[in-house]
């Protein structure tokens, strides 16, 4: 079938980069395309009815997905390459799948939707995230889930296949973080949960007490915890079948629950 070059209302070189094989689907070659031009293109396509995007040769373009607000229907965006910082920042309800690694700021203040990463992620993953889900197959960097929050039934979920670096869950106020430690590397993160006052972190593996922030404690899992893990670990494995493990194998590992001691960790330090 001949690929149809489509006019998405933008002028310039971008025109030749856009192809469509089926109605509602668009393939974009983003070679040399600046972030703004790419995001303009995505929005125009969205407004013209595109529901599935395949973005190729992505290299450092930022804020992919951020411009696609206002539509009630979730879009699917597949990315081949290495997206730039703030992928899915303020994302409001679409599904992004990345075939490769991602950089810093993924899911920054994300409200809804889903991001799946077939590789590793950088720093401040899921910062201030307030809804939706992110699945990362391998390791993540510093300050993951910083100030993640929740309200009523809007609870964000972050599932990471590998390990994290320092300040995991810093200042967390809600949401669920699951760190599976697959791949055999030990957990070396320090300051886990420092400033945490809401939400929960489940970590599969071993930790020294000195790795935890002052505001958190370790407690045993209850039925509710196991149900949560069962559900989200299952969703994680569905997205990364190449891992070749099943839920039972994963739950045989040592699962630690880290949660805040108090909602007001700093109540006592002020003199009135």
């Amino acid at each position, binding site marked *: 079938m001949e690929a149809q070059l489509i006019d998405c209302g933008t002028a310039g070189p971008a025109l030749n980069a856009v192809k469509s094989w089926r109605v509602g689907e668009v393939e974009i070659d983003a070679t040399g395309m600046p972030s703004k031009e790419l995001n303009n293109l995505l929005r125009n396509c969205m407004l013209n009815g595109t529901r599935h995007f395949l973005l190729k040769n992505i290299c450092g373009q930022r804020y992919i997905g951020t411009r696609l607000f206002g539509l009630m229907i979730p879009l699917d965006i597949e990315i081949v390459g290495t997206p730039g910082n703030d992928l899915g920042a303020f994302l409001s309800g679409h599904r992004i799948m990345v075939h490769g690694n991602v950089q810093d700021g993924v899911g920054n203040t994300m409200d809804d939707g889903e991001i799946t990463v077939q590789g590793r992620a950088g720093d401040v993953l899921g910062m201030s995230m307030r809804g939706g889900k992110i699945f990362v197959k391998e390791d993540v960097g510093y300050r993951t889930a910083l100030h993640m929050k929740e309200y009523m039934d809007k609870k964000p979920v972050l599932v990471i296949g590998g390990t994290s670096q320092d300040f995991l869950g810093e200042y967390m106020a809600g949401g669920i973080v699951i760190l599976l430690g697959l791949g055999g590397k030990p957990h070396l993160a320090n*300051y886990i949960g420092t400033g945490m006052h809401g939400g929960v972190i489940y970590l599969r593996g071993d930790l020294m007490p000195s790795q935890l922030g002052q505001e958190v404690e370790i407690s045993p899992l209850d039925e509710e915890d196991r149900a949560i893990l069962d559900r989200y670990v299952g969703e994680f494995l569905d997205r990364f079948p190449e891992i070749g493990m099943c839920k039972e194998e994963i739950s045989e590992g040592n699962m630690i629950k880290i949660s805040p001691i108090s909602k007001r960790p700093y109540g006592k330090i002020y003199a009135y």
Partner: protein
Amino acid sequence: MRSYLFPEFQIFRDESACNQCRGCERQCAFGTHIYDPVADRMVTNEKLCSGCQRCAIFCPKNALVVRPTPPYYRPNEAWTREKIDDLKKQAETGGVLLSGCGSDKPLRIYWDNIVLNASQVTNPSIDPLREPMELRTFLGRKPDLLEIDDCGEISTELGPNITIEAPILFSAMSYGAISYQAFNSLAMAAREFGTLFNTGEGGLPRDMRAEFGRYATVQVASGRFGIDAEYLNCARAIEIKVGQGAKPGIGGHLPAEKVSSKVAATRMIPEGTDAISPAPHHDIYSIEDLSMLIYALKEATNYELPISVKVAAVHNIAAIASGIVRAGADIVAIDGMRGGTGAAPKAIRDNVGIPIELALSAVDRRLREEGVRSRCTIIAGGGIRCSSDVIKAIALGADAVYIGTAALIAMGCTLCQKCYTGKCNWGICTQDPRLAGRLDTRIASQRLVNLLTAWSHEIKEMLGGMGINAIESLRGNRDHLRGVGLYEWELDVLGVKGAGE
């Protein structure tokens, strides 16, 4: 001779609230309040009042108000009420006017004219409640470089260094000037918090040496009170006291009233004599003599303790400090003109010496210019009142600060300046067992620890605001300071730009 002086303080008693419990009579050692059994009311002799507020704070009915008497001569900017009354006192007595505490005169306070930086946009602030923030400080001489062999062993000789957990130390206040209870509270607080207290020139009582020696800087002053080999070796540091900010150039004088038997035993002088510290050390008439004493003390302690030299901030302080460092001292302690004291002639207290802010800046700059700044630690003192003063002192070049007056205020002192009478109603500056017994060492030491804890938190907040997470990165870092309302020459001496520059 009849006195021509009005009382310094007026006392108002709410007669309807007062129920003649005689608490004020018991609290006041000056005899200001007397119960008149015939009239069944309290009678006040205002002339005796020192304004220490003990009675007003302890009155269960809040019936007392103690206020300074308003100026009652015709207003005169040159002949203030204080000048007139001081003169009259001298006419009546022919004596030298004494006072306690530090200078209260309105010379410019540079701390209040310096403002701090904060990070915005180009550099993140750091939140000390969640991220590491380090105040650990080392006192002592540092080598210029470290030689490390292939096995990872250090081959350079490291001079003795003391670790303290925050850059704040208790300044020298001698047992004799202050009560045993106050002295003990300082020792207990230093131990609990992780810093040092300073024995001052009064020695360290034997019963405290085993428990508190490791938290003490012991002083070797001109009177050489209480010094023996055990005194020197039980301590963490030794300080040669050449001068203090409150009374540069003159010696110390502990009146006989305050030389109780225990004080006498600690100082090793006869009970009931005046304890006099001569003005100079009589074996230090020049800088090489100081060097000799420094090394004598190092010998006496097997080179295991850092030796500090404490001087008052005077005009040539930069050159003096340079000399002290080259003489072999590991620590230079500079006491500014607002430093406190138990007793000093008022004329010296208020007129001699320079402010610590200017002295500190000059010394830090001179030592760096000469390339010897690493050879010593600078401790600055003399009117450090709050945590922001501490931070500004560090930014101007100090490694740590000494607090004296601030520590006493934490224990209850209200700066009534009558320390030399020995009648401190708060139990701090007295040897009268009835008064000293009022100070509960557990509570007083807890108040001191609270003070250090609160200041440490505030310092961490301010450091974090500047984007700094280790105190050593602020030391001498004047770029984080700006002056407001200062003259050009003052900015030059401080080495600080004006705000907006």
